[in-house]
C-alpha cells in the first residue's frame, strides 16, 4: 500500500481538470457533489467551470450519474481490481494481455485512452464509492486505487478520495487516528491501543460472541447487521444513545434519548475530505447531547473504579 494521496474539495474545485467517479452514484447519493465541488464550479485554474473538466464514470451499470459524464466505462461486476491493475501496468508502458483485459468488460483501447487522459491531466481526482470498496476484493480494491493514484504522481498531480456517506463517519476515522493512532477497531484491554481488523471489528466481535457488553451511539446496528450479530446484541447488556427509540434501542437494556446532531446538537463534523466544519443547530432539544451523556457515563464509571 502506498498511503493515501489526498487533497481538499476546495483544491478539486480550483484545480481538477480530470474527475473520475469509480463505483459511486453521486447524482443520487451525494446530489450536490457535482455543483458544489467537482464539475460545474468555476475555480481559479478552471475559470470556465464544466468546460475545463472531463468527467469519467466507471461503474457496473449505467446509473443516473452517467448523464453527467463525458465518458462512461461499464465494467463487469467484481472486476475493479483487474481494471485498476491493468491501468497501473499501462501507465508504466508494461505489456498487457488484451484477452485478459476483455474479461473486465472493457477493451485495451478504452483503458489506453483512460490512462492517456490520466497522464495528460494537470490535476486528476478519483472519487471511489462503495461499489469499489464493498464488492469482491474489498480493501484490496481500495489499496489498488490508492496505489494507482500514488503512482500517477510520477507524471502529474493525482489524488484519490473515498465518497463517504453517513454524516460524520469521516470524523470517526479522524478522531480515532489522532487519539489512538488507528482509524477504527481499536482495543484498549491491555491499557494501550491495539489495532487488528478482523479481531477488533464489530461484526466479527459480535458473531464470535467476544464482547460481554455493547454501547451503541450514532448507529442502528439491529436494523442493518447480519442476524447472528443482532442475536449477540440481544444476549449481552446493550446501552443505546439515539435521538429516537431506534430498532436497536428496542432490544437494549438501557436507552438514552439525545439531541439530534446538526439539528439540535452543536459541535464539529468532518467533511469527506477531512476538513472539520462547525454545526449551526436551528432547534433546542429537550434531551442532552451525545457528548454530555458519554461524559457523564465516563465520570460515573471513573467514580466507581476509584472506590
Amino acid at each position, binding site marked *: 500500500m502506498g498511503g493515501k494521496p489526498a487533497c481538499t474539495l476546495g483544491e478539486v474545485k480550483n484545480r481538477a481538470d480530470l474527475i473520475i467517479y469509480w463505483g459511486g452514484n453521486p447524482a443520487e447519493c451525494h446530489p450536490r457533489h457535482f455543483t*458544489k465541488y467537482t464539475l460545474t464550479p468555476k475555480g481559479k485554474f478552471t475559470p470556465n467551470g464544466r468546460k475545463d473538466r472531463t468527467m469519467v464514470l466507471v461503474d457496473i451499470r449505467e446509473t443516473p450519474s452517467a448523464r453527467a459524464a463525458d465518458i462512461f466505462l461499464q465494467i463487469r461486476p467484481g472486476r475493479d481490481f483487474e481494471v485498476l491493475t491493468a491501468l497501473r501496468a499501462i501507465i508504466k508502458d508494461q505489456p498487457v494481455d488484451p484477452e485478459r483485459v476483455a474479461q473486465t468488460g472493457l477493451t485495451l483501447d478504452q483503458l489506453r485512452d483512460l490512462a492517456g487522459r490520466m497522464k495528460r491531466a494537470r490535476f486528476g481526482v478519483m472519487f471511489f464509492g462503495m461499489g469499489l470498496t464493498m464488492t469482491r476484493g474489498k480493501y484490496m480494491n481500495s489499496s489498488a486505487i490508492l496505489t494507482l493514484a500514488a503512482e500517477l504522481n510520477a507524471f502529474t498531480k493525482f489524488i484519490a478520495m473515498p465518497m463517504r456517506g453517513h454524516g*460524520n463517519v469521516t470524523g470517526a476515522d479522524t478522531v480515532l487516528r489522532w487519539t489512538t493512532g488507528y482509524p477504527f477497531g481499536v482495543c484498549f484491554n491491555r491499557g494501550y491501543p491495539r489495532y487488528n481488523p478482523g479481531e477488533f471489528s464489530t461484526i466479527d466481535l459480535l458473531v464470535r460472541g467476544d464482547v460481554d457488553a455493547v454501547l451503541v451511539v450514532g448507529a442502528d446496528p439491529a436494523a442493518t447487521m447480519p442476524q447472528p450479530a443482532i442475536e449477540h446484541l440481544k444476549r449481552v447488556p446493550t446501552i443505546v444513545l439515539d435521538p429516537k427509540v431506534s430498532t436497536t434501542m428496542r432490544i*437494549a437494556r438501557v436507552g438514552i434519548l439525545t439531541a439530534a446532531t446538526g439539528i439540535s446538537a452543536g459541535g464539529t463534523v468532518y467533511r469527506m475530505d477531512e476538513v472539520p466544519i462547525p454545526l449551526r443547530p436551528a432547534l433546542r432539544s429537550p434531551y442532552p447531547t451525545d457528548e454530555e451523556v458519554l461524559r457523564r457515563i465516563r465520570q460515573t464509571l471513573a467514580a466507581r473504579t476509584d472506590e
Partner: protein
Amino acid sequence: MAVTVVQNATCTFCGCVCDDIELHAEGDRIVKAKNACSLGEAWFLHHTAERLYPDALIDGQPASLDAAVERAAEILDRADLPLIYGLSNITSEAQREAVFLAELAGGIVDSHTSL
C-alpha cells in the same frame, strides 16, 4: 409563530457536509431548508425538537437520565470486554468522549468504517 433563520447551517446527512444551508425554524421544527438537496431537505424537515419519548428507558420502561447513566456505568464496569460502536452520526466532540470512555472501560471502540 415567530420564524428564526439560521444562515450557513451545516447539513450532516452525507459526506458532502454542505455548510451553506439557510434554515427556517418555527417552534420545535424546521420548516424550510434553502440550498439543501432533496436528501438534505428531507433530513432537516424530518427531525423535530419535540419531546416524543421519555428521557431514558431501562428494560423498556421509562426512566430518568440519572438512573440510566448509573445503570450504563454499572454495565460497563461489570463487563470484561465492552464494545463501543457506531460513531457515525455524532459530533467529533462526542466521538472523542467515546474513545475516552473505551479507554477507561478497557474496551474496544469501532465505527461503521469496519463494516
